[in-house]
């Protein structure tokens, strides 16, 4: 337990839309150890995205305790959560969510800018990361000038920028063709082997199979948690 990066206890999330209260998560206990590769699967509306938002500190739980890297973030303010996201979480989205008007370099640089990293170090780090994802020659390209697979690699470089405790990916291959999807899956596996902690939400059973552990969610509860099955 001591090395758990993510430690969730009896997490509940209720959306109050005024008339109707929707309970999206009904008591989640989830612990993710350092270096784990966890796939979260489940049908639409099962609460995956809500769980992802809570894990990524984009939202706070209605009830329960959440320790991220040992810090209790359940009661953090917006700005404290922003700092936590900056330092501890790297996001990879299905739609890439790169800023379209700025170059790949500047996109990867953003979290470093928010993290207060000095300009020279920022440049070194961005160059290193883009080389790592194989885009050293595309640094000055804008996202619109890149293919889907390349955009997702820029997004992964951006997620890695602040050396986060955990990389959270939401359907990272959902918008990619099979071959690019395969590349990205390969990149995730590589990162895992290098020691990163990965939490991936996916419908893609190919990607889920690569994970060491699969957590299945239905109706706001974890219904299965175990080794990936072939």
């Amino acid at each position, binding site marked *: 337990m001591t090395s758990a990066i993510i430690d969730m206890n009896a997490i509940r999330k209720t959306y109050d839309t005024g008339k109707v209260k929707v309970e999206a998560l009904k008591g989640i206990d989830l612990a993710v150890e350092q270096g784990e590769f966890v796939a979260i699967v489940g049908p639409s509306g099962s609460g995956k995205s809500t769980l992802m938002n809570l894990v990524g500190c984009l939202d706070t739980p209605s009830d329960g305790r959440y320790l991220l890297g040992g810090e209790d973030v359940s009661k953090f303010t917006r700005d404290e959560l*922003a700092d936590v*996201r900056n330092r501890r979480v790297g996001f990879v989205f299905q739609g890439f969510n*790169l800023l379209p008007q700025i170059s790949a370099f500047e996109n990867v640089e953003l979290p470093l800018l928010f993290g207060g990293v000095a300009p020279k170090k920022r440049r070194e780090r961005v160059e290193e990361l883009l080389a790592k994802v194989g885009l050293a020659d595309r640094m000055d390209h804008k996202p619109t000038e890149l293919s889907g697979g390349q955009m997702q690699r820029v997004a992964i470089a*951006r997620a890695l920028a602040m050396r986060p405790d955990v990389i959270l990916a939401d359907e990272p291959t959902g*918008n990619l063709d099979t071959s690019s999807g395969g590349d990205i899956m390969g990149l995730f596996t590589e990162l895992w082997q290098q020691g990163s902690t990965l939490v991936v939400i996916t419908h893609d059973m190919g990607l889920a199979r690569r994970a060491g552990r699969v957590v299945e969610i239905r109706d706001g509860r974890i219904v299965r948690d175990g080794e990936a099955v072939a």
Partner: protein
Amino acid sequence: MKKTLSLVLQLFLRSARLQKKRATLTIAALAWGTVTILLLLAFGEGLKRQMTSNEQAMGNNLAILWPGETTRPYKGLSPGHRVQPRIEDVDYARDRMPELDAIWAELTSWRTALSYGKKTINGRVIGTIANYGNARKHFPKPGGRFLNPSDEDEKRRVVFLGNEMARDLFGEEEPVGKTLSINNSPFTVIGVMQRKRQSSTYGGPDATHAVIPQSTFKAVLGNDRVNVVVFRVRKSADMDGALVHLSQVLGPRLGFDPEDTHAFGVWNTVEGQKMSEKILIGLEMFFGIIGALTLIIGGVGVANIMYAVVKERTKEIGVKMALGARSAWITGPFVLEGMVYTFLGGLFGALISIVIVTGLGFVKLEGNDVLEFLGHPTLSWPIGLATIAILGVCGLAAGYFPARRAAAIDPASTLRYE
């Protein structure tokens, strides 16, 4: 704090670089608004100054008193008695009313023959004293002078001409030093009045009369009946007191009850000054409101654009939040953007207005009736400060509301949907 400022600045510069066209249009809208308000206020101010100077071309803080008839019995005198002041009575009042800036009697001879060479005109001749010159703004053209006390003491036959009368008599010739005749007596011209635009008079415009010493008037025209008594107070607030005091001084001497308001017909120019000040302030406020509304429309335009920017960039803001941007780093650039646009728009607007107003300042007013009435548009500090205040409000509003909206964005919901 330092980190926040430098981050906000960097983020602002990064986003500003991407939208030069929008920035240019926004700044142009604000510059336009600024030019509108500044020019309207400048025209208002110019009009005010011009009208005030026209109105006060006769002199300011004056009271003009026409002798009338009593309406109350006084020390055995029945009502209906004519008040007939003489020159000595005005001298008597002068000695007893040191609070006055000046007091003098005016003797008037209407339709008097003035001739120079073969030319003869009928004009108004005023007999008065040296103090009249400054108080009634009879400033001589270079090379001439107004009456002085020696002219009075020595009964000199000298005359100061209104500029139009001088032109009628002398044409293009220089009148000073020449001799003309008034009622067939020779008089030397000592000065010609500088041209002035005058909108109020008693008796007639200053430009069309001739002024000679009182003592000479009496000797040559054989008349010492005082037509009007005029005095000037040092400041407008003294006027009411001075009018009461004058009645108290002259009443017993001329035989009227100091309380009798009909002993003199009074024109108190201070009241007129106050009235026109009010009208002019009203006019300026009207201009100011129109200008302010125009400028506010510019400000609303900025806010609207910024609002659209926030909406358009909702996802981008969500991404930045996900990457760890604090609220202030999101809202700061918007606030800064609003303020920078407003500042630049205001700056350009002010520069354009200054150029226009300075340019109009070179236009000659003389000889053009419309411009002589309008005056030169004038920028003043109060106008500048009012404009800055309105611009400041616009800038803050243009930044604040969109920023508040940006800060309220929920990153989780913006990132979820594709």
